[in-house]
């Protein structure tokens, strides 16, 4: 996109500013447009979704928990459908749904007899309240094992169907006991859910910083760090490491910068790193195997982390990861916990995501336009075998522990949301 257009183009920033002045429906539509046109993408998606759901909670009319849940679900799946290549949106929707369920059950506990509340005090995340839904309908709550999806499906089947058939159906079956909750508590619930969503937003905004906090453990003096397409998280990570360590950063890009405005990519990052005494080299290369003997480790950010440990990443990162594997160099993936998806990609998702080939092939080149069937893959699925460390805001994780993190953050009822998106 030309920079001159950028000033006039709608952006997330403008949308968030205009939230107050527009009707809720109008702002949702606006965001959907932004998502569809990929003017909001990557890490912004999570933030945008949280903002929008906050508006839904705060401004839409709802009288009980079920209404709220179905509203969030319908808005959430609309957003997710607008950008099926951004699984993060679904994650945030699920987090918010889980949050509402938690708050609702807490309310009910206060109203009804306390004896019924079976608090399942598992190692819950700091951001989520430490109460879980009391076991009203089912006598025994299924254990939150990593492969909880199969259990979750049976549990939330009714929920799924009813939500899919119409978004504003008043009754969703999964939380039957809660649906009798008194409308009087709606107000309290509203403010509690809003608080909760704000906490999620904080988590999103702080994730990069928290990840960067682990930088000096991972980066050692004299290292050659190959950073593939440095994302904001990776930049922060490198800068934090640069404060303590002397290393060399090999910044690699995949050629999409060639026809972009200036020649030198990552100029700002390089300036900061150089100022901290860190050598930087911009690798302008397609293949990365040539440089791998020199590099010690490979670092990049993920767009999403799936349950199996597989990743959704920029396609160039796959090349870096494969090259690293060839030379047995560790691959470190930076990802906030909010990017963890409680499901595995379906066949369709695991295919590559195609982008605009304009930067590579000029339309001015007539013969080329004739001759080429161009395919420019931008995002790709990276199998879990190629990743060594998942560095999250909760610390470094291995593949085996991803399941427990996911089950800590999502309710089994909401894991099926992805199905709902695909069906609709």
């Amino acid at each position, binding site marked *: 996109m030309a920079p001159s257009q950028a000033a006039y183009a709608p952006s997330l920033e403008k949308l968030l500013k205009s939230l107050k002045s527009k009707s809720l429906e109008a702002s949702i539509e606006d965001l959907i447009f932004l998502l569809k046109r990929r003017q909001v993408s990557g890490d912004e998606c999570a933030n945008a979704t949280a903002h929008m759901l906050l508006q839904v909670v705060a401004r839409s009319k709802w009288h009980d928990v079920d209404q709220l849940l179905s509203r969030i679900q319908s808005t959430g799946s609309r957003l997710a459908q607008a950008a099926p290549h951004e699984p993060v949106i679904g994650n945030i929707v699920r987090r918010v749904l889980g949050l509402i369920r938690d708050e609702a059950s807490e309310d009910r506990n206060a109203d009804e007899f306390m004896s019924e509340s079976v608090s399942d005090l598992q190692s819950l995340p700091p951001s989520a309240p430490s109460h879980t839904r009391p076991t009203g309908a089912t006598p025994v709550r299924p254990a939150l094992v990593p492969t909880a999806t199969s259990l979750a499906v049976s549990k939330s089947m009714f929920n799924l169907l009813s939500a899919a058939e119409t978004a504003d159906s008043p009754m969703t079956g999964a939380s039957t006991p809660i649906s009798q909750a008194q409308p009087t508590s709606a107000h309290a619930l509203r403010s509690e859910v809003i608080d909760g969503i704000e906490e999620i937003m904080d988590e999103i905004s702080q994730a990069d910083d928290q990840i960067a906090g682990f930088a000096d453990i991972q980066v050692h003096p004299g290292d050659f760090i190959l950073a593939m397409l440095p994302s904001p998280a990776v930049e922060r990570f490198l800068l934090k490491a640069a404060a303590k360590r002397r290393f060399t950063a090999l910044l690699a890009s995949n050629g999409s910068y060639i026809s972009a405005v200036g020649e030198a990519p990552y100029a700002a990052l390089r300036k900061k790193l150089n100022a901290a005494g860190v050598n930087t080299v911009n690798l302008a290369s397609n293949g990365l195997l040539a440089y791998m003997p020199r590099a010690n480790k490979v670092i990049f950010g993920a767009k999403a982390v799936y349950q199996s440990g597989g990743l959704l990443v920029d396609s160039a990162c796959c090349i870096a990861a494969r090259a690293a594997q060839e030379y047995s160099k560790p691959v470190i993936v930076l990802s906030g916990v909010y990017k963890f998806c409680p499901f595995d990609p379906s066949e369709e998702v695991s295919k590559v995501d195609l982008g605009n080939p304009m930067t590579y092939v000029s339309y001015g080149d007539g013969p*080329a336009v004739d001759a080429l069937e161009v395919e420019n893959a931008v995002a790709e699925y990276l199998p879990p075998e190629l990743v060594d460390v998942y560095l999250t805001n909760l610390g470094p994780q291995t593949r085996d522990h991803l399941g427990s993190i996911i089950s800590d953050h999502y309710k089994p009822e909401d894991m099926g949301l992805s199905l709902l998106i695909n069906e609709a």
Partner: protein
Amino acid sequence: GRRPSVVAATILKETRSSIPECFRHVPMAKRVPTSAAHKDVHPAVLAVGQQMATFAIKDSIARLEATLLAFRRVIESYETPKGNSLSRHFVPHVLNPQIEYLTECRPMCFAMGNAIRLLKTQVNKFDIDTPEDEAKEGLLETIDLFIRERISLAEFVIARNAARLINDGDVVLTYGRHRLVEKTFLRAKENGKTFGVSIIDDPYDNGGQALAKTLHAAGIRVFYSPNLGGLRANVERASNVLLGAEAIFANGSLQAPAGTADVAMVATNVNKKVVALCETINFDRERVAVDSLTYNEIDPGRNTAESFRLMFDNTRDRYISG
């Protein structure tokens, strides 16, 4: 005439200082002004040197051919000074300055090294009393034969054999643009095969686009990826992989345009046949390389910390099936 090469050395120093330290051992092509060249360098060689430094003549065989043709001119215009014999005087006083200059313009490729070695042995074979005309005639003949056998005939045979590997309905994947690969595709088309070609390009080189246009003009269906993105999916769709190599080391590993190794690795991992095409003149029987930093060149257009690129990479033999 030592003075000119001092000038060249300072040019060398200036350009090299911008190369990041960890890659400073890798040689790089550079433009040596014709005025800075040794006084004995033949005009034809001067021209070839400039073309090499600017990458107007790029791949190893084209460089080899240009060098040999230039040397032909050198030999034609050579006259043995009085009291000397061709077999004693020609190599140290005439041929060596040419070679030195060419190496300064761009590091020699293996094919050039092999050819020059052959030429020198040929000169040494002449008896000290061989008449000049006869010796010159012999050398010119050697060069002609060399070009015919090792370049033209090799190209023909390789293309013919490789074209047999392409079957009807195949989608053949290739990386960038290589002369032999292009010849092979056209040959297979002439033989009446119907097949598609999937070209993976290097966005820093864009040779693949030119190849795509040639193939399209010949009526071959072309799929094009501007970079290595989605490589795995592309390779899985293809039936086999045809790569062009710049050189082959004694341990069987390939030197080929950067990115080739990535393609070969992925293709082998998904069990596709990977065939590398290379003339035997590009084989090196002495040097061994297991990684890409042992023998390589830096792209003279991208040689600073701002933007840095190696020309070649190294594909281990285990990733090549034939």
